[in-house]
């Protein structure tokens, strides 16, 4: 089904892990479309269940996780909850810390409301790598710039859905306008709950996780099982530290006062207090 792609609207991925079959078509389609390099020394047997890719990095922008929780019973339930399969990707966060810390302005929010690293503006400082709470970004050694999923910015500009969503045979990866995707996700969650699969939960569809994720998920276990921070932890420092802000504000106010006092003192012929002055100026 072709989605009409209009600049100015918000787009994203809804990744429904309950129907993922771990075929890795998304990984390969992503690498092929984006011409990502394969390094010789990466051809290793990792033994992470059936996964030998290991992680998201500068040359892997989609990565299927395999989490083996299969019980010992002869008869067991599948339904996406015993052998957890999840195609991971950059979350395109509303509160994108990578964007906040980028000193060159290389990371921007596009006209499709996605987070994009401009290769020609990135200076390879690695600040975004440290800032990303999902370990999504890495320096692509070949190009020496920070890289991650672009949500196929070039394809969106050409009116095409991202390569991974296009390749996904079971529609585990769905691309579309964010509002649509959220509706579909809620319905899917309700269906699974009605079938008794109470563990089905949406992750990042609302603003509880980093202000909301444009690439959000339906999970079949707690977020921690997929190495994702749960809602309580998935917030940027500024929201966790209201007290800290007040403290800074207080310090600033005090600084201002001290500056005023210092100036008055200087005007009165007293000693200099550069520290106090600078604090005041910065405020």
């Amino acid at each position, binding site marked *: 089904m072709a989605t009409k792609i209009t600049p100015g609207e918000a787009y994203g991925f809804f990744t429904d892990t309950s129907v993922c079959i*771990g075929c890795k078509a998304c990984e390969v389609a992503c690498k092929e479309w984006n011409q990502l390099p394969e390094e010789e020394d990466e051809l*290793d047997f990792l033994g992470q269940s*059936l996964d030998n890719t290991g992680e998201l990095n500068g040359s892997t922008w989609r990565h299927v996780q395999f989490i*083996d929780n*299969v019980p010992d019973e*002869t008869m067991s339930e*599948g339904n996406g909850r015993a052998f957890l399969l999840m195609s991971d990707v950059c979350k395109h966060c509303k509160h994108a810390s990578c964007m906040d810390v980028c000193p060159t302005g290389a990371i921007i929010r596009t006209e499709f409301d996605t987070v994009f690293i401009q290769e020609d503006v990135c200076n390879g400082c690695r600040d975004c790598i440290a800032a990303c709470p999902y370990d999504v970004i890495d320096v692509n050694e070949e190009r020496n710039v920070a890289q991650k999923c672009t949500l196929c910015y070039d394809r969106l500009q050409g009116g095409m859905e991202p390569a991974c969503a296009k390749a996904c045979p079971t529609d585990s990866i769905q691309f579309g306008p964010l509002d649509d995707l959220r509706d579909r996700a809620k319905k899917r969650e309700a269906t699974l709950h009605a079938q008794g699969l109470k563990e089905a939960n949406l992750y990042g569809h609302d603003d509880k996780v980093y202000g909301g994720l444009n690439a959000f998920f339906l999970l079949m276990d707690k977020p921690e099982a997929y190495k994702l921070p749960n809602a309580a932890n998935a917030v940027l420092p500024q929201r966790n530290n209201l007290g800290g802000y007040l403290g800074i504000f207080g310090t600033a106010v005090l600084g201002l006062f001290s500056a005023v006092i210092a100036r008055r003192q200087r005007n009165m012929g007293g000693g200099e207090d550069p520290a106090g002055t600078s604090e005041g100026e910065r405020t």
Partner: protein
Amino acid sequence: MTNHWRDIRHADLILINGANPAEAHPVGFRWFMRAKLDRGAKMIHADPRFTRTSAVADTHLRIRTGTDAAYFGGLINYVLRNQLYHDEYVRGYTNAAFVVKKDYEFKDGLFNGFDPKERKYDPKKWTYETTDGGFARLDIDHPRSVLNLMRKHYSRYTPEMVSRITGIPPDQFLEIAKLVGEMGRPDKVMTIVYAVGLTHHTTGSQMIRSGAVLQLLLGNIGRPGGGMNAERGHANIQGNTDNAISWEILPGYLKVPAPGQRDLSDYVEESASKKAHPNALNFFGENYRKFMVSLLKTWYGKRAGKGNEFAFDYLPKPAGDSSWMSIFDQALKGEMEGVILSGMTAASIGPDANQVATALGNLKWLCVMDAFPTTSSEFWQAPGVDPSKVKTEVFALPATHWIEKDGSFVNSGRWMQWKDQVIPPEGDARHDHWVLADLFLRVRELYRREDGKFPAPVMELTFPYRDPAKPELDEIAREVNGRNLKSGKRLETFADLADDGSTTAGNWLYTGSYPESGNLAKRRKGVQDPKRNDPTGMGFYPEWAWSWPLNRRVLYNRASADLDGRPWDPRRAGIRWDRAKRLWVGDVPDYPPDADPRDPKAPLPFIMTGEGTGRLFSSGLVDGPFPEHYEPIESPIENPLHPQVSASPMAFLYDSAAGRPNRFGKVDEFPYVATSYRLTEHEHYITQHVERLVKLQPEAFVEVPDELAREKGISTGDWVRVRSKRGKIEVRALVTKRLGALKCDGRKVFHIGIPIHWGYVGIKTSEHWLANALTPFVGDATTRTPEFKAFLVNMEKM
């Protein structure tokens, strides 16, 4: 497939046995998921391993490999005992009421007609009692009616017996049986999907037949959302089979002539099915001669005439067979001079790879046609082989890849889809069929210059191509379709084929694929406009490519409607009788299109068989009229049903037949059951040349059950040695809970999982062992397919 990929979305219940569609057919698997997501279908995956298919199935049922006939047998018994079968269907659409001859017997694991010396049955002994007219006697209440014989035969398959054999606890088996039992209702329908997990056994054909028998009882054959559906392997393996890649058939499933057949009448007499019911159309049997004559006319043109039995004499009447294993068995015996390999690598794909390597080394010459180096083109320099000791002369001919040529792929659902050449051939690569054409022309030239024994079959073969050394696939497609020799026009249906020499057809099943209007396999009216392109809304898309036979999308679809021609389930109609139009409408009917179902002389619903019905009882397979469970040749237990005949009495034991010792392991020395399989990341052996895929699964490994690994102190990443009676592999272990222990006949059974994809050729494969070093050189009685899926091994940490 009786049905097709897209059709799976119509099922209420999906049984998956001997298959792993999420990994082997991920794109086709979308229709399984649509059934589940759109209509709440349940998916039951019975498999020794919890795979990526089990991950999204509703239920995974751990079952011992090689025991699916017992599982299906148990379900058949449950359905019969509890009267859950579709009564009207069973009476009208199957041979349940046919009375079997008195000498039928099943005793101590053997059917009647067995010759222990030859290890062979005489299937002619499995036949019906006849009435004065020569037709079968019908009486469903007769003690020897097929239905009553079945009741007796399957009464042994109690939940407890099923459990002893398969390892599925009785209460869990009954849970599944209950779900399956509901599918006998006319408003319900179930599909069974299988793949090489059923075929790769010495009892493979019977395992598949047991599923088909269950489907007939439930009235699910011929219905959208139902059927017995084989997922084929490579993109064109269905097309290969249709066009006689198998040793026992000519194109269109005509039998290979047998010794003693002096003329066409002998051949037809011994090959074609006979009418067993006055209302049976017996279409295949009645037209057998026409199909064969048209094939001979295609091959021998003007040289095939009434005077010479249409050149029937030119065809070989082999006493032996040329199945895959038989070819290498002959090489082992020094009876094979040379082998040409095309599109496969013998060194990797066959059982007992070490023995196959010996066989390759016994040849004078070996010619490998492939787009890439293969383990066969390089076997003389494999690790541990001294090239100076290999006498075989090896030729590697660079062949084009399918992406470098046009032609057709026929998918599992029998759709013939034409494709274009994407890129021109690289370097000196030539098409396989051009190499063969060139070779043929040179052989014929040799005959012309030097003469030879029996030259006619070679000298007189038609070769009607513009450039005989370079036939176009389009020319061949037209030739396969066939034409009327009087008008010169290509035919639209095999119903127009004749036995007087006035028609040709390279494969009668494909007649109609390329009529005068053009190559129908090129049609692409699909989901761009579902309203127009799928008028029934059933997903038939009649103008998308072309489906054999006659563009029919669901085989046996007459059985999708009741005796009056009303669909069993109007929401999922296959065809229905339109009283106003006096025609069958819907899919292309598998029935005379204007035959009124209320006419007392109306043909019976299964028009191809001599009975006019589906066969619950059949003499079509060589190892028994009813499917029966036999243990794999290497098994951890004796068959609880009949320990004295534990394995199939007809499994073909090549080694002992050739005077070599059988090398089969016993459970005391080789305590674990092994099964070999493919992973989603690779395609057979060819993708070892594709970097992206090698990265996804870079190295050979075996999957080891968590519990066994703990016993043996093995962790993931450790090197282990896995040995069978025939060979060993030394690879890494992947410890997983997806493989667990089973209790079979009181014994704890562990499975070791062995993915097959690696060898000594490719990007990162220089020192890899061949998985098939472990597998036994033994084949199914009917098809000679090797037993890749069940054998015994031992394992130790290195």
